[in-house]
């Protein structure tokens, strides 16, 4: 049943690479933004919140299009990237950016939810014990946010595995270079009789996400703080 061509294998490897990188890249941003939204007291929180949610609200294709405008040759950031010698469009980095942007709102919402549950007295205890702002962030808020970071990471990873619309615009559908699993599936399903290939790749996607879920369970179990024995 699982018959994979070498192009398929390349797509799987690429998907894993892109999803992992996108998740890792998004985590610090997600953490910082979630902190800002959960604890920050500046004006315009709602604006930032909305801005972060955009990639969720708009169809991925639109996001891809906007990213292309932004990062393309004529785009405001594109020129900058070009002088730095960084090529984003039509490379796997483009896929990472697409996935990261699409995954960010999921990440931020999760982490924020977790952060808002942290007992403010714990944070205060840390501050009175001499830990400065960033120290408390790193040594208390971060470890206590692990469950929500994991949840956010999983959402981002899973979403990246399935991301199609923005990726195909920003990175193109180049087999072996930017063709991730969803793009490959797209090709398969647009070929009459391509169902078998599509199915195999779907299964691989599912396996990959299961792998992540299992890792998640292990992390969660470790960081679970109290005996949770309820009848």
């Amino acid at each position, binding site marked *: 049943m699982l018959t994979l061509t070498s192009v398929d294998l390349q797509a799987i490897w690429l998907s894993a690479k892109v999803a992992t990188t996108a998740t890792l890249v998004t985590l610090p941003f997600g953490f910082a933004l979630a902190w800002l939204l959960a604890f920050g007291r500046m004006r315009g929180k709602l604006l930032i919140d909305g801005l972060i949610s955009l990639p969720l609200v708009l169809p991925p294709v639109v996001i891809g299009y906007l990213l292309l405008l932004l990062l393309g040759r004529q785009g405001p950031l594109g020129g900058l990237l070009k002088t730095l010698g960084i090529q984003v469009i039509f490379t796997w980095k483009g896929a990472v950016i697409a996935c990261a942007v699409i995954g960010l709102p999921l990440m931020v919402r999760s982490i924020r939810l977790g952060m808002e549950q942290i007992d403010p007295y*714990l944070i*205060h*205890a*840390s501050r*009175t*014990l*001499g830990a400065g702002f960033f120290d408390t962030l790193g040594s208390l808020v971060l470890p206590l946010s692990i469950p929500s970071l994991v949840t956010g990471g999983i959402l981002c990873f899973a979403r990246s595995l399935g991301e199609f619309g923005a990726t195909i615009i920003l990175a193109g559908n180049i087999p072996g270079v930017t063709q991730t699993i969803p793009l490959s599936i797209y090709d398969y399903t647009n070929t009459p009789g391509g169902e078998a290939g599509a199915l195999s790749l779907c299964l691989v996607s599912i396996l990959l996400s299961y792998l992540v879920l299992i890792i998640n369970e292990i992390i969660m179990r470790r960081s679970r703080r109290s005996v949770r024995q309820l009848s």
Partner: protein
Amino acid sequence: MKLEVELAKRLGGFDFSAGFSVAGERIGIFGPSGSGKSTFGNLLTGLLRPDMGSIRLNNCCLFDSQAGINLTPDRRRVAVVFQHAHLFPHLNVRRNLLFGLQRTPVDRRKFNLGEVAEALDISPLLERNVAELSGGEKQRVALGRALLTCPDLLILDEPLSALDKRLKEQIIPFLRKTLRRFAIPYLYISHSLSEMRLLTDRVLLFEGGLFHMVTDAETLARQRMSSNRYGYLNHLSLSEPREVGDLLGYRWGENELLLSDHNNPQTGLFELSSKDVLLFKNHPHALSARNLLTGTISDLIPQGGTVGVVLSCQGQKLIAQVIREAALELGLEIGTKVYAAIKASAFRRLA
């Protein structure tokens, strides 16, 4: 330590306001439940932000609404033991204890982990997860965690109420000793007058969200003599124990007192209830009490149905308490010479 406070804070329907200036190393905060004691602590540490006013600690301004100053908690150097332990759930006991210590400049550190853990009887728990501690154990870890930061001011919010008597008796002397030895000034919030007397020099009284007055535990104890279960508790510093038959004889100024406490023949602080001092006009005979002192009445404190009789026994002060009628009958007046009988078992070691 000098604390100058002038502030107001509204919390829902509760109004807190206080304005005073107090100096000393050992300050108590006393007041009924809901009188704003914990609120005051939270205002000092910066958990709550006053609506207006100012807080100055040792001439350093922690908060000033007019000048727009509001030091962050970590720069206030005010540590706190909350009413609930609030231990860090992701760290084990040892790392909870180390949390503050590691953030204290090396030259400020005055204790090490071992010492404190030993004194608080938590050495065997060091590798435990904090979720696996009993109520009393948690509170002790919180106490240790705060102590180890050697702060400029330590706020203790009912730190001992979750502890059993044995531990309390063990920790109070330790607190006295270490806080004094390392000169850690503290604010001690408690319902216990006896803890107040042992651990504080001055006491701030709160009531209904208002700062009421500065007094001291001694005065409070005298004022509450008639309503308190054990009257007034004399604190006696006794020294040079020697064996006298089954008993121990201690020096108390010029006097010798016989005590039945045999466990620990050492110089120390002892407690004696005013109600345990029996007064006689004439020398009583065939008396079960082992101590008979002579003294002169230096003051009389009438209170409720009783009279506190302040005696001067060879220069040492002792307060006895008799009911008004007895005082009249015995003709107790300032200057009168009386016999004071005290049972050897009436003394209790405090430290």
